[in-house]
């Protein structure tokens, strides 16, 4: 029996058989894995057979909430999507704060929605409290994400309905396509393509039920605490004023911002991407996710130039890094337009910028020519070329059809040693942090469950401020494990990573305890994080992953950084990996040891599948 937070109910939808069923959430599982990413990993391990094609009907897609969603807990707007990644073949999770979608699922009465099967024709799912329908979506197929949301709301005659759609990119199985909820994306890990493979255009939710906290008095005390912390945090006004693009001033000055396919750290046109320029050029309005007291989101307007008059979501830091400097673009208006197109087509901006920059370097080195690129001359800094390539990828048109497969597969196709500078790990493209300038991030990229995803425990602040060492291996293994675990818990309770502006690990746990009434200790929670992380690892091991996949491209390991503050540095991965595996209780080949599996309470689960 759940006292608060959880609704205790799971919604299972099979699109092949057109069935809708509910089942009870097992309290023991909820206590062991909390929710979100944790329960998602547990279910995926149990339910996704080894070596399953991510696009097959048997491949399930998990839309997860945690115990906090729907309450007034600050920074708890998000939901998590868990799926087998069509980019890497590993487990993937993506979190997304858009549209109040996670809270809406709770208000409709569900902790999670699990979707398997493939619909015979395009459909969308309409969850209206207890009434769940699989509805025809043929007339919505082909629409952009914004058009889909508007059309479904019109069809349902309710503008308050929360809609999580895919765009044409997801329909065409572009491997880095995402689910776009308002101005936010469950972008990485290809969940949009998995939805597309199921002929599922969108999920729409309306919920009129209530969510409760087990101890509302304690909850209100915590609320007062956290609001006071936010009000007195000197970093908050800057975050609100500049949004995540504020980070760029730090990463550029420390040699961490990627430039031209991670080939260098200095960029002549950097002024055009600086936080103040982004703010002054674009911002017209601040936006918060549902229930969030820190409005870091921005609405932008392009006021002049070729994209004049477009109202769009302000690009986030990662987007500016990958579609901007990494493609040699220093005009924020072009980056914003590229971001807008990616959102409308439903593609991850990070992976898009990553694969385009890779293609440009291949072209510059003569590994591909105009014969391969449909006549396009590829060069860094070509804004028009960037927009053209995004359009071609979204349509899988000509050269775009190849790029739609993601950096790893493009590099395998092009061959000729191009894998040396194909900037991905396990098939997931690097985010906007150059590992040679921030070596702990290199370890994070190499060891994170889905590959190079910064949001599994970003190391910029721990390395720069805490360790005051961004360039050596010292202390990085323990720090990466700690950060990965922190994010593991955050993603399972489901807090936004920006909850750090108002709370620490202990406060997050206090909120979880007040809402669930369960009284987790700090020690118990750390054990839980290790359990979840190692379970994700076991999923990957079962898929055949091992140490040789925990790697970085040749460039990071062998080509010294040519310029900037990290000049001359490479990533000492091998040293860090050895320590990291020890930290985790995994063997030298990166496989969790039996004693670790036992200690973390995973033995029964693993035995079941051996």
């Amino acid at each position, binding site marked *: 029996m759940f006292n608060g937070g959880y609704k205790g109910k799971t919604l299972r939808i099979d699109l092949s058989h057109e069935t809708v069923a509910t089942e009870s959430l097992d309290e023991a599982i909820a206590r062991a894995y909390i929710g979100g990413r944790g329960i998602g990993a547990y279910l995926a391990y149990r339910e996704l057979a080894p070596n399953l094609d991510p696009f097959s009907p048997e491949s399930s897609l998990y839309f997860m909430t945690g115990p906090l969603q729907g309450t*007034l807990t600050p920074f708890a707007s998000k939901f998590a999507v868990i799926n087998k990644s069509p980019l890497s073949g590993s487990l993937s999770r993506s979190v997304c704060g858009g549209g109040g979608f996670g809270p809406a699922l709770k208000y409709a009465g569900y902790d999670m929605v699990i979707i398997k099967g493939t619909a015979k024709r395009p459909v969308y799912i309409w969850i209206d409290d207890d009434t769940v329908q699989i509805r025809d979506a043929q007339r919505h197929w082909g629409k952009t994400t914004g058009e889909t949301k508007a059309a479904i709301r019109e069809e349902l005659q309710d503008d308050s309905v929360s809609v999580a759609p895919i765009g044409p990119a997801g329909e065409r199985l572009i491997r880095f396509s995402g689910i776009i909820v308002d101005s936010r994306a469950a972008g990485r890990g290809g969940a949009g393509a998995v939805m597309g493979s199921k002929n599922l255009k969108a999920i729409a939710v309306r919920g009129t039920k209530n969510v409760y906290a087990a101890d509302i008095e304690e909850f209100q005390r915590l609320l007062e605490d956290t609001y006071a912390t936010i009000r007195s945090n000197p970093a908050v006004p800057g975050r609100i004023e500049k949004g995540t693009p504020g980070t760029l001033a730090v990463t550029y000055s420390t040699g961490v911002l990627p430039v031209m396919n991670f080939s260098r750290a200095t960029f002549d046109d950097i002024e055009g991407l600086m936080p103040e320029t982004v703010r002054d050029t674009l911002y017209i309005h601040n936006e918060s996710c549902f229930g*969030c007291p820190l409005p870091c989101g921005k609405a932008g307007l392009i006021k002049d130039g070729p994209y004049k008059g477009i109202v*769009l979501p302000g690009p986030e830091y990662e987007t500016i890094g990958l579609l901007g400097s990494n493609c040699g673009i220093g005009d924020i208006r072009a980056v914003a337009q590229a971001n807008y197109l990616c959102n409308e087509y439903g593609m991850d901006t990070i992976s898009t910028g990553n694969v385009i920059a890779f293609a440009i370097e291949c072209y510059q080195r003569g590994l591909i020519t105009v014969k391969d690129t449909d006549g396009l001359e590829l060069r860094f800094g070509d804004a028009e070329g960037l927009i053209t390539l995004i359009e071609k990828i979204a349509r899988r048109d000509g050269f775009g059809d190849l790029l739609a497969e993601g950096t790893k597969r493009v590099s395998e196709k092009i061959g000729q040693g191009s894998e040396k500078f194909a900037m991905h790990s396990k098939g997931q493209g690097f985010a906007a942090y150059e590992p040679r300038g921030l070596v702990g991030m290199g370890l994070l990229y190499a060891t994170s469950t889905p590959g190079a995803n910064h949001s599994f425990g970003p190391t910029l602040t721990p390395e720069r401020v805490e360790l005051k060492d961004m360039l050596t291996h010292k202390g990085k293994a323990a720090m990466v494990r700690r950060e990965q675990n922190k994010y593991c818990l955050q993603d399972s309770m489901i807090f936004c990573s920006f909850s750090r502006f108002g709370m620490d690990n202990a406060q997050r746990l206090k909120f979880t305890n007040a809402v669930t009434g369960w009284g987790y200790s700090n020690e118990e929670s750390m054990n839980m994080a290790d359990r979840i992380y190692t379970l994700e690892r076991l999923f990957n091991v079962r898929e055949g992953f091992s140490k040789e996949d925990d790697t970085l491209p040749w460039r990071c390991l062998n080509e010294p950084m040519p310029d900037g503050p990290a000049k001359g540095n490479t990533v000492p991965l091998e040293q860090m990996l050895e320590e990291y595996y020890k930290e985790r209780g995994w063997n030298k080949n990166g496989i969790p040891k039996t004693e670790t599996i036992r200690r973390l309470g995973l033995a029964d689960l693993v035995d079941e599948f051996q």
Partner: protein
Amino acid sequence: MSKKRLRVIEERCVGCRICELSCSMFHHSGAFNPKNGLIRVESNWSFGLNKPVLQMDRPHICQQCEPAPCAEACPVDAFVKKDDVSIWAIDQEECVGCQQCADACPYDMIVMDKEKEVAMKCDLCGGEPLCVRYCPTGALVFEE
């Protein structure tokens, strides 16, 4: 008698809906759903060429009208004047759930409680509105 009034500074609203959630928490004994809110935020976000850029987020509040059409429409005199905050409130013991107040409200700010089958309106939380307390941007103010 307090002359404080709830006021909206619209351009500061960021659409977080914390006001709706805190209102729900206060008026429904700790239950959360923004649809319970006796304050309402309308968000008009759409992206693309020449989309509107004004009034992207707009809080709607009870105007505490005087004379009050809701109170005048009530057939059972369930509306009582709270002199301490100088506004009309609904005595839920008296309310028969006929919805005539909701029909009469020109701002659509009366919310029907489905479980109890009674009407609810903003009562400024008895003088210390929670929406104002938790509004992170100062879009809601309570002052003379």
